[in-house]
C-alpha cells in the first residue's frame, strides 16, 4: 500500500507540477485548491459514509425481503432538507472567502511591488512565443526581443502583457502561475514572480491548431546580477566570427541520423541541471570552425531564412519567426520542443515537419503555402554549416 500511494505522489511531481510551486501567484492558487480539497473531502467522507451505510443497511438480503410488505411510504422531511441546504451554503462560504481574496491578488501586481516590476510583452504565434522587453531599448534596433525563453529576474514581480497575432493561445508556467489566455484584439495581462533563480517549463494551454501539443516555452529566472549581465549580452548585436579568424582544434563532428517523427528532443543530462546547462550556453563553445560558420551565414541568406528571422547587426529583417540574434545561447529550439543540441538543430533544419508538423517554416518557407510545392530543402552538408553558424550566435 505505501508503494501504491507513493506512486500516486510521484504522479504529482514533474517539471509542470502545480504542487511544486516556485512563486507567490502559483502558491496563492495552490492554497485555494487545498481549501477546496479539504472542504469537498470532508463533505465527501460524510456523504459517502451515509450512502454506504444506507446501502448496506437497507439492502434486501433475500427474495423474501424483496417481497415483504413495502416499507413506510414517507415523502421526505422538510427540516432535514432545509438543514442540509443551509450546511451546503455554509461549506461554500468557506471556499468563497479565500477564492475572492486570491482572485484580486492574482489579477494585478501588488501595489508595493508595482514600481520595481518588470514589464514584458508576451506574444503568441502559431506555434511559438515572442517576448519583448519594452524597457530595454536598443539604439537603432528598437525593443529587445527574444523567443520561446523568457528570462526574468528572480524575486521581482513580472507583469506580462499577453497578446496574440493569430489564434488564441494561453500562457501557462504551472510552477509560477496559472494560465491566462492570449487573445487577438484583446489586451490581457497577468503577473508572476519566481522566488529563487530557476528553470521553469511552460506550454500553450489553449488549443491553437495542428501543433498545439508542441507549442512550449521556458521561463528562466536569474539572480539580479546575472539578469543584468544577461541584458547587456542580449542587447549586443549578433556575434560575428570572421572566416579568417584563427581556429582552435575543431570539435569532433557529430553523428546525425533522423530519429523520426515525434522522437523526443530532451536528455536526462540536461534535465538534471537545466540552469547549469543554460549558463554553459552563454559563452562560445570550444572548437568552432570559422569557415563553416561563414558558410552557414551565407546559407542563412541564400535559403531565405532572413525573410522571417532576424540576426540583429547581421542580416535578416524578418519578424514572423523568432529572433535568432542569440539563438546559440538558448537551451531549446523549435518552440521549446527540442533541446538546443547540434543533432537536434540539424534535425530541425532538415526535417522541420517531422518535429512540428505543419509549422510555418515548413509550410510557408520550405514550401509554397498556396500550392504546397517544394521551394527548397536543406541537405546534410548545408545543415552542418547552418548549425555551426547558428550555434556561434551566443
Amino acid at each position, binding site marked *: 500500500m505505501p508503494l501504491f500511494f507513493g506512486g500516486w505522489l510521484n*504522479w504529482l511531481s514533474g517539471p*509542470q507540477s502545480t*504542487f511544486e510551486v516556485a512563486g507567490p501567484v502559483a502558491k496563492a492558487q*495552490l492554497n*485555494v485548491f487545498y481549501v477546496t*480539497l479539504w472542504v*469537498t473531502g470532508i*463533505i*465527501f467522507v460524510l*456523504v*459517502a459514509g*451515509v*450512502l454506504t451505510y*444506507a*446501502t448496506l443497511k*437497507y439492502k*434486501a438480503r433475500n427474495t423474501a425481503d*424483496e417481497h*415483504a410488505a*413495502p*416499507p*413506510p*411510504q*414517507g415523502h*421526505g*422531511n422538510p427540516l432535514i*432538507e432545509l438543514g*442540509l*441546504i443551509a450546511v451546503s*451554503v455554509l461549506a461554500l462560504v468557506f*471556499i468563497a472567502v479565500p477564492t*475572492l481574496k486570491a*482572485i*484580486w491578488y492574482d*489579477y494585478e501586481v501588488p501595489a508595493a511591488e508595482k514600481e520595481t516590476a518588470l514589464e514584458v510583452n508576451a506574444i503568441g504565434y502559431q506555434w511559438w512565443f515572442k517576448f519583448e522587453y519594452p524597457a530595454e531599448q536598443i539604439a537603432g534596433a528598437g525593443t529587445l526581443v527574444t523567443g520561446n525563453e523568457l528570462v526574468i529576474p528572480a524575486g521581482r514581480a513580472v507583469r506580462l502583457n499577453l497578446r496574440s497575432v493569430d*489564434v*488564441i493561445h*494561453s500562457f501557462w508556467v*504551472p510552477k509560477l*502561475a496559472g*494560465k*491566462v*489566455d492570449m487573445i487577438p*484584439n*484583446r489586451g*490581457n495581462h497577468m503577473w508572476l514572480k519566481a522566488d529563487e533563480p530557476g528553470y521553469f*517549463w511552460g506550454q500553450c*494551454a*489553449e*488549443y491553437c*491548431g*495542428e501543433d*498545439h*501539443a508542441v507549442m512550449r516555452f521556458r521561463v528562466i529566472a536569474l539572480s539580479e546580477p546575472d539578469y543584468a549581465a544577461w541584458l547587456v549580452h542580449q542587447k549586443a548585436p549578433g556575434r560575428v566570427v570572421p572566416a579568417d579568424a584563427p581556429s582552435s582544434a575543431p570539435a569532433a563532428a557529430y553523428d546525425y541520423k533522423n530519429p523520426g517523427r515525434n*522522437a*523526443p528532443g*530532451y536528455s536526462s543530462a540536461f534535465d538534471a541541471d537545466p540552469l547549469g546547462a543554460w549558463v554553459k550556453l552563454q559563452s562560445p563553445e570550444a572548437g568552432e570552425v570559422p569557415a563553416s560558420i561563414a558558410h552557414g551565414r551565407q546559407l542563412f541568406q541564400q535559403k531565405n531564412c532572413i525573410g522571417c528571422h532576424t540576426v540583429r547587426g547581421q542580416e535578416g529583417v524578418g519578424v514572423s519567426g523568432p529572433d535568432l540574434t542569440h539563438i546559440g545561447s538558448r537551451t531549446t529550439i523549435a518552440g521549446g520542443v527540442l533541446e538546443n543540441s547540434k543533432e537536434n538543430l540539424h534535425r530541425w533544419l532538415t526535417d522541420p515537419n517531422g518535429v512540428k508538423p*505543419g509549422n510555418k517554416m515548413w*509550410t510557408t518557407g520550405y514550401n509554397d*503555402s498556396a500550392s504546397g510545392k517544394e521551394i527548397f530543402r536543406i541537405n546534410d552538408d548545408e545543415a552542418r554549416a547552418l548549425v555551426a553558424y547558428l550555434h556561434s550566435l551566443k
Partner: protein
Amino acid sequence: MEALVQAAPGSHETHAAPKRSWLFTRPTAKTGIVSWLTTVDHKRIGLLYAISALFFFLVGGFEALLIRVQLAVPNNTFITHQTYNEMFTMHATTMIFLAVMPLSAAFFNYIMPLQIGARDVAFPRLNGFAFWVFIAGAIILNIGWFVKSGAPDAGWFGYAPLTSKAYSNQFGGDMSTDLWVMGLQILGVSSVVGSLNFIVTIINLRAPGMTMMRLPVFTWMTLVTAFLIILSFPAITIALVELMMDRSFDSNFFEAANGGLPILWQHLFWIFGHPEVYILILPAMGIISEIFPTFSRKPLFGYPIIVFSGACIGFLGFGVWSHHMFTTGMGSVATAAFSLMTMAIAVPTGVKIFNWIGTLWGGHLKMRTPMMFALGFIWMFMFGGFSGIMHSAAPADAQQQDSYFVVAHFHYVLIGGSVFALLAGIHYWFPLVFGRKVSEFWGKLSFWIIFVGFNVTFFPMHFLGLNGMPRRTAVYDGNMGWNDANLVSTIGAFILAIGVGVYFFVMIYTYFKGEKSGRDPWDGRTLEWALPTPPPEHNFDVIPTIHARDAFWYEKHHQREISREQAVHAKEEESHGGIHMPSQSWFPIVAASGLLIGSIFFVNHIYAGAIAGGALMVLGIYFWAAEGPGGYHVDPAGHDDGSHGKH
C-alpha cells in the same frame, strides 16, 4: 394536438380515403422499412433515436480509444497531430450531440408520453421530422471522414479565430469546419423542434388528474431540459450563422485580422454550452429519480425539492457560462461573480444527492442491475461534482483550466453521470419496451467492468492535470512525469471498452433470447408500468385518471376503485368511436432530406443546389400542411385484453 383535434366526434377522415391524389395517400404499412421511414409513433421514433444514438456512442468510443492509444506512451507516432485533432473534435461532438443528447431524446420520446398517460406526443409528424433532421445533421458532421478535406478539427467548442478561413483553409479546399458549422445548425433545428413538441405534450396532454406536482420526476426533467434547449440553442445558432457568414461571405464577426472579436464567440458559445451541460445531465437525474424509488420500494424523498432544484439548476445554468472563461481575462469582478454563481449551483445539485440517499433510507433496496448503475451514478457524480466545486474557485481553476483535471472532471459527470444513468435507464425500461429481462448476472458483470474500467481510465487524469498536462495535446515528452498515469488510463480505456462490449452483447442477446418478463417486472410506481409489454401502438386502452404522485403504485393499491372508474371511461371513449390515431406520413423525411441535400450543396458553395435542397424542404413542409393531420380509429377491445391496470 392533432390527435385531440381529430378525435372530436364526427370526424370521418380515414387513411384510405379513396378520392385523394397519390401525393396525399398516407402510408399504412405497419411492418417493414416503409413503416419505419414514415412512422409517427413516439415509441418507434424513440427506438430510432436510441439505435442511432447507440451507434454513434460506439463510434465516439472508438475515436476515444484511438486517442488513448496515441497517448499510451510519450512521443507516440500512432496517429498524426492532424488526425489526433480530428479525433478529439469528433469524439466530443459525437458524444454530446450524436450520442448522449439523442439517447436522452429516445427516453423522452418513448417514456415521457407513457408517464403522463398520453397516446402520443402533441405533434406526431413533427416528432418524425425532428428525428430525420437529426440524422441529416449526423451525416453532415461525419461526412468529412470520407472526403479529402477530413473531419472537423477545430475542437467541439470551435473557438474563433481558429475556425476562420485563414486557419482551416491553409491549402485550400478544407471544408471540415463548414461541415461542423452546418452539422451543428441542423442538429440545433432537430433539438429545438423536438423540445417544443415535448413542452406542448407535457403541458397539454397529461391525463386527467396528472397535475404538475404529480408528474414523474423524469417527465419533469424532460420539461426542464426541453426549456433549456429552446432557450440555449438560439445562442449557438447565432454564433454559427455569424461564423458561416464569415466563412462563406467574408463578413467579419470573428475575423480578428479585420477587427472581429474572437471573445464574442466564446460568450455566445458558452451561453449555449453551459446549459448544454445540464441538457446532458438533467435527463440522467430524471432517470435516476425513477430508479431509486422503484428499487427502494418507497416514494422519492422530498419530491418538491427535487423538482424545484432541477428547475433551479436550469435557471442558474444560464448564469454561470463564463466559468468556462476564467482564463480569458474578464477582470476581477466578473470572475468573482461567475465564481460565486458557480458555487451556488452546487447547492441544488447537492440537494438532489441528499434526496436520493434519503430515498434509499428506510427502503427495501432491490440490488438489480438498474439499481447498481444508479448507485454507481451517485458515487461517480459526487466525484465529478466535487471537482466541479474545485473549478468554481477561479484561482484554482487558473491551474486546472484546459488541463487533464478538467478532462477527468467532465468525464466523471458525463460518463459517471449521464452515461451511467442512461445505461441504467436502458436496463430499467428494457422489459417494458421488449418484454424481456436482462440476465442479472451478465448485467451486473457489465456494470462492474464498466465501473472499474471507467475509474481506471479517468481517475489518473486528475493527477495528470494537476501535474501540468494540458488537454488536446497529441504528444507529450517522457520527462514530464506523465508516463505512468497515461499508460494506466489507456489500459482503463480498454477495460471500459470491454465492459461496454459486454453490455451491448448482453442487450442484443436479451432482445432475441432473454427471459420473458411480463407486465410490471420491477413493481413499478409510474404509469408506464401499467402497460402490457411491448405497449400497443395506442398505449392506453383507456386514458387513466390520476389520483396520486406515484400513479401506478396508487392504482395497484386501490384496484377496485380504479377498475370501476375505468369502466366508466371506457364507455365514454367508445361513444367517441374508439381511439383516434395519427396517420403515418412521408413528408417529415422528405422535408428533412431537402435540408440534407441543400446543406451539402451549401458547404460546397454550390448555391443553386443549396436553393434546390431548400425548395425541396419547403415543398415537403407545404405538402405536410396540405395533407392534413389525417388519422384513423382503433378499437382496443379487439386488440388487448382490455384489463388496463390489473396486475
